[in-house]
């Protein structure tokens, strides 16, 4: 309770304050001006963050959760479809992360978009995004989840295409929307299946009924029995694959870098793309009933984690490196979920939100400093010109590669440990993938750091002299994100993973005791929390992942600082592999050739042959010709004699009456 408002009003205020900011900046931005537009949106998001962090989170920690409707959207067949909130530890954590990163990005945008004519529009969009994302995480039912799900997708579409005159941007945003729609296609079918078999879309009710349906079998293909829960889980996961960019629906995320950098940080790294991870964690009572579905999540996540990381190695655009890194890290989160370590997945979601937002914003700071140059081949040595950006980027990088003590270390090590313990089919493959992924991550991350900030500048002196550190509105968010990127891991690992923070909001079946084993290992560290974390960190320095990370880092140092002429030679030697990675496994070419051209080809076929030739040509005009032919015969009957006609009429009437009397 604050200011005498009841809980529900506060929950409503959180998304609505963002929406109010978005509407003001969007509809009245032309009138109130740039300054007022960023003031109202920042104010809205600040209110949302303040309430989430200082009212909702303490409430939830004190055990005060909420689950109730806001209004009834519609009723059909006696089943109410509602808009409502579920405020529990899981959603509270997401609310804090989303509003905090969003607030940082809002402040940063003042600097980044300073000279852009679409300033107000941009603020309106990101505030609207925050509203939609909050509605998604706060939902207590599948309908509103889908609302938020699609709404964040639309804002993402609008923001990728923010610079709507650029052909690449408007190609990328259409592609992002359509690929996401493929995911949503599965997602919606999953929701329809839930509606049919559970008779409700309310989370609480569905999770309550789920165990009773655990053994239910349905036949989608005649004669083939499928487990209902597996079917629903996989359909829902197809949605998650779209939103969280898992292979093969990952193709849109790298292209989404066409959008301004602040949204790459907010939407395409920290929040929206993690919606799929959040969704699976939220649905843990369902996923826990199907080992098959968990296995699918695990394997898809592992493939994404490793193979997308590889692509990051050959990218030269600084934002694309971070984008492929995001794909890979999303894969890590999925692996955690597949291993039934949901809390670890959410833990990594949180640490990743901070350090990846930091890395994106740092990349953005470099891009402003370099006057919108994004190619790392034209950078180098920026450390001296942009010390603050450099320092914070190092913190982000160390967190990303999982250097002990940094936030990413705790979450990533726990994922590797979890999958190591997991018995879910595919776990061995996933373990190898995430372990090798550590090497790949360290390599591309420090390749980026070295190419950007270290070594000799690869630009002319004049350009280099003009590079300068970004203004405080840009560096302040960097610093504020660097703090949790370092500290959030050891501060929260105990309560989040082993302290029962999530309580009943995450359900793990006793058949998947991965978390218990992790807790058991962790507890060996000693009596006090400091001891346990100290032992864990000390152990981290001797672990296999650390070794792999150091090899990656060292190799990056060798190749990009010590012997910078070598990578070119390797490239020339391994042409095939290099081309494969540079072309992202030719996924875009495949999609364009098969789905793009296929759909247009079918459309043309149906139109030109089906509609124009067959229906219009043969049936419509054909029947016209038939009538012409028939009338040329029937014309003979038109004798012109009235008695002929009268006779025909009487005959006709006679036949009709006969039919009606006897028919």
């Amino acid at each position, binding site marked *: 309770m604050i200011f005498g408002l009841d809980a529900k009003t506060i929950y409503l205020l959180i998304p609505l304050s963002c929406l109010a900011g978005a509407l003001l900046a969007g509809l009245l931005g032309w009138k109130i001006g740039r300054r007022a537009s960023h003031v109202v949106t920042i104010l809205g998001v600040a209110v949302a963050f303040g309430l989430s962090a200082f009212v909702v989170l303490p409430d939830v920690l004190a055990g005060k959760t909420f689950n109730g409707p806001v209004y009834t959207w519609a009723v*059909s067949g006696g089943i109410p479809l509602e808009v409502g909130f579920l405020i529990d530890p899981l959603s509270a954590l997401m609310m804090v992360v989303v509003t905090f990163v969003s607030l940082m990005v809002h402040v940063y945008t003042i600097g980044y978009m300073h000279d852009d004519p679409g300033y107000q529009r941009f603020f309106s969009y990101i505030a609207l995004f925050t509203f939609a994302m909050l509605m998604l995480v706060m939902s207590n039912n599948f309908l509103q989840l889908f609302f938020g799900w699609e709404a964040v997708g639309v804002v993402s579409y609008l923001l990728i295409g923010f610079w709507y005159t650029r052909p690449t941007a408007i190609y990328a945003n259409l592609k992002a929307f359509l690929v996401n729609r493929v995911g949503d296609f599965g997602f*919606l079918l999953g929701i329809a299946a839930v509606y049919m078999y559970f008779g409700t879309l309310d989370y609480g009710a569905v999770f309550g009924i789920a165990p009773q349906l655990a053994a239910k079998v349905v036949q989608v293909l005649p004669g083939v029995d499928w487990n209902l829960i597996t079917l629903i889980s996989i359909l829902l996961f197809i949605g998650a694959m779209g939103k969280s960019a898992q292979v093969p629906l990952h193709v849109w995320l790298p292209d989404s870098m066409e959008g301004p950098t602040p949204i790459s940080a907010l939407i395409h790294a920290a929040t929206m793309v993690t919606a799929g991870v959040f969704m699976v964690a939220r649905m843990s009572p369902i996923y826990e009933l199907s080992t098959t579905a968990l296995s699918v999540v695990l394997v898809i996540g592992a493939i994404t984690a490793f193979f997308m990381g590889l692509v990051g190695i050959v990218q030269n655009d600084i934002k694309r490196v971070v984008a492929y890194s995001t794909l890979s890290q999303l894969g890590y989160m999925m692996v955690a979920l597949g291993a039934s370590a949901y809390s670890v997945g959410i833990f990594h979601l949180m640490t990743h939100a901070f350090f990846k937002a930091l890395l994106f914003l740092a990349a953005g700071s470099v891009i402003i400093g370099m006057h919108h140059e994004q190619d790392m081949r034209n950078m180098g040595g920026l450390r001296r010109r942009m010390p603050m950006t450099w320092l914070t980027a190092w913190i982000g990088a160390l967190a990303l590669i999982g250097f002990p003590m940094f936030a990413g270390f705790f979450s990533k090590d726990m994922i590797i440990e979890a999958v190591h313990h997991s018995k879910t089919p595919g776990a061995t493959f996933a373990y190898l993938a995430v372990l090798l992924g550590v090497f790949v991550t360290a390599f591309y991350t420090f390749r980026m750091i070295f190419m950007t900030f270290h070594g000799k500048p690869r630009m002319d002196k004049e350009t280099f002299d003009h590079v300068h550190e970004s203004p405080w509105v840009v560096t302040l968010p960097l610093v504020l994100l660097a703090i949790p990127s370092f500290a959030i891991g050891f501060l929260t690992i105990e309560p989040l993973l082993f302290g029962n923070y999530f309580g009943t909001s995450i359900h793990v079946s006793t058949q998947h005791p991965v978390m218990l084993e992790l807790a058991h290992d962790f507890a060996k560290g000693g009596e006090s929390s400091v001891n346990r974390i100290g032992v864990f960190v000390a152990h981290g320095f001797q672990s296999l992942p650390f070794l792999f990370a150091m090899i990656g880092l060292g190799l990056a140092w060798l190749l990009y600082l010590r012997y910078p002429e070598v990578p070119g030679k390797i490239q020339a030697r391994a042409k095939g592999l290099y081309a494969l990675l540079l072309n992202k496994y030719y996924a875009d070419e495949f999609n364009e050739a098969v789905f793009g051209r296929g759909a247009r080809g079918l459309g043309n076929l149906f*139109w030109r042959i089906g509609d124009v030739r067959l229906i219009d040509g043969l049936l419509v005009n054909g029947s016209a010709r038939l009538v012409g032919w028939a009338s040329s015969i029937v014309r003979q009957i038109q004798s012109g004699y009235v008695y002929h006609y009268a006779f025909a009429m009487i005959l006709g009437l006679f036949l009709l009456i006969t039919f009606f009397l006897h028919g």
Partner: protein
Amino acid sequence: MIMQHALSLAIWLPIVGGIAVLTTGGDDNAPMARRLALMVALLAFLATLPLYAGFRVDTHAMQFIEDLAWIDAFNIRYRLGIDGISLLMILLTSFSTVLVVIASWQVIQNKVAQYLAAFLIMEGLMIGVFSALDGILFYVFWEAMLVPMFIIIGLWGGPNRVYATIKFFLYTFLGSVLMLVAIIYLYYQAGSFDILAWHNQKLAHLPQILIFVAFLAAFSVKVPMWPVHTWLPDAHVEAPTGGSVILAAIMLKMGAYGFLRFSLPIVPDASHELAWLMILLSLVAVVYIGLVALVQQDMKKLIAYSSIAHMGFVTLGFFIFNVQGVEGAIAQMVSHGFVSGALFLCVGVLYDRLHSRNISDYGGVANRMPVFAAFMMLFAMANAGLPGTSGFVGEFLVILGAYQANFWFAFLAATTLIFGAAYTLWMYKRVIFGEIANKHVAELTDISSREGLFLGILAIAVLVMGLWPAPFLDVMHTSVEHLLKQAMTSKLL
């Protein structure tokens, strides 16, 4: 007193008003004709509001009944009445007509009074279709409403208007004739033209099938269903903007409405027996037409094909025989009225400036018309079925319903998520986004306040229905339940 004749008022007020507009004469008096027409349209809209306000949601019985003798010799009566389904259609009709009058304010400069009068008269006739409870009365309204539409396309249409009008006429006429035979047959069976009596009339198997086919001929052309849809793209392309709006928003709903008022309750056994065919044709409409829409070069054709695909959802919803399906289908009818009407108005806004409907003649419109681009974005998203817009409500409920019938129905129907987004947003991208494509686009001016008015009203309608569809669905629940009960009860002799 007024409430007892509320339906007659809704029908005859625009017709009489339309005749009054005609009396203003030539184009010298055009300003007066416009003002008068707007007044009539507004009054006619206001006249339909008491129908909603006074509507009782707790009964499935027909309401606002009027019953007068008309042609005693054949027991033909002037019998009117509405349920929750027709109520929504009537409101949609009077709402759309107001927008059309505003939309043609400056666009039509030639035979202004006649143009506006045609729409007002057509409004009354269409409301007549939705409220007639006598077979012959229904048929008269059904045929009569076509006349103003032929005139609108034939007089104010594009260069190929004669071909389009004749195609439209032939298609619909063929269907109507068969429907008349069915109506006469039912009269002989039931002894009256009372549609409600037909609902209780038992019929043998073969007559049921034949009646179903006869009605199908009439209604499937109007919807239109694949493969009798090819008149619609031609008619839309040639029709003036207002004609397209009414055609898409209201006339297509006539066919769908016919299934609910005639086919399902009168011949339930045949409806069930042939449901597979209806579902098949509906799904073909969604998938096949969705792909055809993708490759269209003409904006109006694209939206016309999109209409057919969206109407596929309506017929699919009807013939899966569950509450979600039917209610979703009716919600889709209302939403499609808003969204396709809005999209045709958007194309009209562009056409008035550049006199082209070709997608390739545009590009980068957002640079010159940002406000327009924002409106069209909303309508494009609604057309793609975005949650929070009206376009989602119907599609969502129909997919929920279809899943209950068969997984694959839902699977094929849900492809609209992909196709609908693909054809709508690809068109949007090519027209609105990008660099300014040519010097004509560079000279574009953003929408006027009059254009902002009708687009704004539709935007509000689209959002309200998307965010809170309950008021739309609540009035139809009992009617739909009753309808489904009729449709589920065998009437075989």
